[in-house]
């Protein structure tokens, strides 16, 4: 299998589908002439022209809404949020229109729309440019929300997203754009709503997604050196959510740690803890431990930023804690 970057996997999914289906167009700021701020769309304007790779003014609410209109009228637009931080300006269109149109039209219209862009922090972008919005958008019925972590998943899920008849919030792990991995040749999709067991293990389940997924794998190796056999679950899909895989894992390990960059309150980790205690109450040998970001807007200074996100040590400690080992 070819080895490509997360970024190239994304681009090739879009390019391939644009070749196959001319209802697919891209919209966003500086995705064309400029080449895309994160180079995800680089070169596509040369391949498909400005009618299909549409540079927009800085009007997130307007162009997201226009894309919803295009989708209602039979097209399959893909909107780039230059970063998800700007999507608060488009929240009304995403939440009030994209998510609900099918329902309040009594099924008369669908909104086959993908909104994609980098999510998460870690490069000193400070408070307004650092968010992890999985739970924020995951809350709303009518949306689908995914957060893949490998080149293989990001390509397969992007293809699935474009073909999906409903709006998909596609949260890319911005920090992973340059990471490489094997990607199957030819056309394939990765189904939404299925978590991926990234590593099997017997002693404790580590749950995460996006940028945390590779971190958890690394930590599992470290734990292994201490004789702890961790299972790693990469959620991938936030809505629909794969409770079964988590519950099954916990039935085996009886302990779980869930890790997220985002804030603790009313979050993905809250949900994971709630589900596990609901569905595997008698299987649990320790409370589910959540490891989350600090409850502060993201700071700029490097040392503060590092301290604002979960550290490997905190995750290791959490794993040891649910095993009642010394930390």
């Amino acid at each position: 299998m070819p080895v490509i970057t997360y970024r190239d996997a994304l681009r090739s999914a879009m390019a391939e589908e644009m070749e196959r289906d001319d209802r697919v167009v891209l919209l966003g700021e500086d995705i064309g002439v400029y080449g895309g701020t994160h180079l995800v769309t680089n070169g596509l304007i040369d391949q498909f022209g400005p009618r299909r790779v549409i540079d927009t003014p800085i009007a997130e609410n307007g162009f997201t809404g226009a894309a919803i209109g295009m989708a209602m009228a039979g097209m399959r637009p893909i909107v780039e949020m230059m970063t998800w931080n700007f999507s608060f300006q488009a929240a009304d269109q995403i939440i009030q229109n994209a998510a609900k149109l099918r329902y309040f039209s009594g099924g008369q219209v669908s909104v086959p729309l993908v909104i994609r862009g980098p999510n998460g922090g870690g490069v000193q972008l400070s408070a307004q440019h650092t968010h992890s919005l999985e739970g924020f958008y995951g809350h709303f019925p009518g949306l689908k929300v995914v957060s893949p972590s490998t080149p293989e998943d990001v390509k397969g899920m992007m293809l699935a997203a474009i073909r999906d008849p409903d709006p998909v919030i596609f949260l890319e792990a911005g920090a992973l754009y340059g990471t490489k991995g094997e990607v199957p040749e030819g056309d394939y999709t990765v189904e939404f709503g299925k978590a991926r067991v990234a590593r099997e293990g017997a002693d404790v389940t580590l749950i995460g997604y996006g940028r945390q997924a590779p971190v958890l794998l690394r930590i599992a190796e470290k734990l292994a050196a201490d004789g702890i056999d961790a299972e790693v679950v990469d959620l991938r899909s936030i809505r629909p959510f794969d409770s079964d895989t988590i519950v099954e894992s916990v039935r085996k390990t009886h302990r779980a740690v869930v890790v997220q960059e985002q804030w603790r309150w009313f979050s993905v980790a809250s949900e994971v803890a709630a589900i596990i205690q609901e569905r595997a109450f008698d299987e649990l040998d320790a409370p589910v431990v959540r490891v989350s970001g600090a409850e502060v807007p993201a700071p700029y200074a490097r040392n503060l930023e590092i301290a604002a996100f979960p550290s490997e040590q905190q995750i290791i400690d959490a794993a040891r804690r649910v095993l009642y080992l010394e930390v």
Partner: protein
Amino acid sequence: MATTQSQGKRRRAASTPAKNGSKGSPNSKTEPRLGSDALVSLYQKMVEIRLFEDAAQRGFRQGKVGGYMHVYSGQEAVATGFLDTFREPDYAITAYRDHAHVLLLGSDPKAVMAELYGKGTGLVQGKGGSMHLFDVSNGFYGGYGIVGGHIPLGVGMAFAQAYQKTGGITQLYLGDGAIHNGAFHEAANLSGLWGRDGLNPCLFILENNQYGMGTSVERATANTDLGKKFESYAIEHTKVDGMDLEAVLKVAHDAADRVRETGKPFAVEALTYRIMPHGAADFLEKYRTKEEVRKWRERDPIGLLEKRLEDEGVEESTIADIRTAAKAKMDEAVKFAEESPEPDIAELLTDVYTDDAPVQAAG
């Protein structure tokens, strides 16, 4: 180009397609039909809308219609005139004051009334209510409750028409209150921009009924010449007396032709007035005087048109017959709505996703 539209199921409710006579090729012009026969048939539509609204308002007062409901009474000449230019595959989209638009596009008043009554036979199966009427089989794409929110949608729909070379245009209705919302600014700018390349056949119809809820235009903006707001985006525009059906017809046909030919947006500000309170639940009208309302009622578009028809020599009995028939039609709609069953409770969980993936019930 792949032209299959995967819209999932289309609306299930019955409707009587009542497209206007324009059967020409998508690019032929439509002339306003200003002869007395044509005016009589438009008069009939306006009377039907008015009586529909009266019935709806009664239903609301009786507690049979719930939620928010906003009637169109006083503004009939605007949508009637503009939708006279409508032809397949055009689209229309508006905010929550949407009963008239959907009726003019041919939806069955029975299904519309049943929607207001929250019945399973409603136009959207009782899921949307008054603010969310849809009839895509007739080109009507809603029905939206968030002020400003539908404007970008309409601009996107117009783009899709040009991109797919359907020959259609989008009629995008908005209110004088909505024009101050950021969604208008962003969408209108996109429309002007895309229109430069012929990619935005969007006809903006600004229904200036002089109030956004209780806030008059003067209290909402320092530049009260609302049409001017389109100049920021290089969108050409004009004004029309929205109470005078004939005037609207002329402007509407010119404007629609122009948009169809150029692929560029155009805006018309129709000056009109709602003779009823903002919403069916509102009664205090501290923000305007009884005197002002009375004066505008003298320019009621239906009354004005009646006078025109008299001048044209239309018989009084013709008018009376139209009113009687319209009344009967609306009575029938009410009866249908009252007698229809509530939606099947299983419908609660459908239409969230197109594949009707199972979703969790309450509890």
